[in-house]
């Protein structure tokens, strides 16, 4: 059965989510960037609920457990659609979410970035080099997600421009910044725990909490993966091959979770 890279990534993310876990997903944009930061995490959460984790909860924007079926479909970023979404709670302002985050109440948070390094430091603010600087979106709550969430699942497409030796600007701290560990920096959360890409899955089980290859997707060799990175991740003999999504996962994704591809294909 054929499947898209986004569908595979969604099933991989879904498999990482736990029953009873509270996940946070930010507000996003359209296109591939929006799919990675928002669409795939939302769809993965719903898929987890429909399969192994019925008690998984989503905090999206400033809404707790929005009714997912009212969210999907074309035009899901229109304000009238968002305003009309029913949900368990819409706290009076967004500081409520920020406090929820800083208290460490989010089990899983999702991030994407323009750059990531081997320690999982992320950059969404500035690209700098050769005397030039290119402005990106800012900081949002990404520093807090990496500081406080119990674990952070990073979704990015592999590219030597994105997987870099040193990020140009540390928007958010992974496992080491300025020569200091998370403990030394006083960061209480788990930091980045998984990196889900278009060719492979990584964790930070490498020496000194560096990025380590956990699995190549079927059809990609280790060389295919590493060729798309600006640094060499730790590769040990424990990495696996991740096969295609099973038929039931694909059926749920196509028929129930995201029938129009608005979320995971970034066409919303």
């Amino acid at each position: 059965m054929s499947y898209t890279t986004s569908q595979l990534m969604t099933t991989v993310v879904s498999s990482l989510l736990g029953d009873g876990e509270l996940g946070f997903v930010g507000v996003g944009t359209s296109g591939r960037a929006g799919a990675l930061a928002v669409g795939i995490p939302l769809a993965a959460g719903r898929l987890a609920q429909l399969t192994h984790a019925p008690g998984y909860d989503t905090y999206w924007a400033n809404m707790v457990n929005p009714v997912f079926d009212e969210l999907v479909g074309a035009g899901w970023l229109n304000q009238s659609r968002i305003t009309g979404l029913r949900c368990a709670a819409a706290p009076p302002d967004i500081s409520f979410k920020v406090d929820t985050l800083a208290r460490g109440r989010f089990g899983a948070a999702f991030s994407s970035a323009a750059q990531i390094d081997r320690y999982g430091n992320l950059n969404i603010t500035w690209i700098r080099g050769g005397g030039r600087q290119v402005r990106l979106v800012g900081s949002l709550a990404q520093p807090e997600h990496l500081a406080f969430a119990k674990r952070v699942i990073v979704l990015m497409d592999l590219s030597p421009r994105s997987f870099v030796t040193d990020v140009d600007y540390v928007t958010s701290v992974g496992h080491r910044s300025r020569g200091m560990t998370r403990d030394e920096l006083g960061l209480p959360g788990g930091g980045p725990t998984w990196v889900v890409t278009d060719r492979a899955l990584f964790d930070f089980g490498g020496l000194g909490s560096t990025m380590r290859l956990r699995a190549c997707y079927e059809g990609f060799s280790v060389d295919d993966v590493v060729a798309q990175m600006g640094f060499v991740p730790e590769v040990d003999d424990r990495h696996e091959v991740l096969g295609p999504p099973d038929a039931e996962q694909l059926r749920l994704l196509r028929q129930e979770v995201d029938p129009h591809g608005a979320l995971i294909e970034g066409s919303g």
Partner: protein
Amino acid sequence: MKDKITDLSEAIGRIGPGSSMLVGGSLLRRQPVAATHELIRQGTGDLDVSTWAASLPVDLLAAAGSMRAFRGIYCGLMQYGLAPNFRRRSEDRTLVVHDVSESVMTTMLRAAAGGLTFTPLRGLRGTDQLDSSDDFTEIQCPFTGETQVAVRVPRFEWAIVHGYAADRYGNVQAPMTRDTDDVDRFIAQAAERTIVTVERVVDHSHVLAEPTRTYIPHYLVDAVVEVPRGAAPCSCDGHYDHHDGFMRWYAEHARAGRTGEYLARAVRGTAEHTEFLDWLDDGTWEREA
């Protein structure tokens, strides 16, 4: 309670050049577009602007050269891409950018609301935002000894906010069903003076009947201006969506360095927001490609 009703020109005329100013709204929602256009019409410059998630107004202020500094968690046009004029001014360093993340901004605003001069935060050490401005320094918690980050609380002289409805005294009310993903309440509390544009002015009896809907009480408000569609072409939740075609057009023109034409025709070339709305609605901008 004092009657705070005035017109946009008079209200915005109170903001002097060089002021520090908070701009309300979040992303494409409830942005004070009419108030921003009026700032540009009046040529109020050298502004030190702080925001939550900024979009069109900050890009317009950047294009008009009205802004010397920016502080915020984000500036962009959501699904329409990055904010091209803001980007250019940041990249060529003619605009000072103070990057702050969400806990910094919510904490800074709440601390300003409570009259504090600084406030401690955890979780920021190791990030480069600490070097992006003089908003930050490290301190030791006097009770636990933990190294934390102290955040300076700036002075916010003005705020401009677009709300749903208010009475003539400035009690600003929200509908029961709305999008709460913003910090307008704290913006009004943090600023020394606040100008509110609203979709409609309602009788005080409406406020008295449902006081829990008042998210900005009148004593925080210095001026109330009724500006229907005051956030257009951005959205006002519960009232209207953003204008998809226009936002696409704006983003394309801004990327091409043509926002000056928009400012000349639709902002400086109009006397008030109703004239801007006529231009937005008649669609001639589409043919001005």
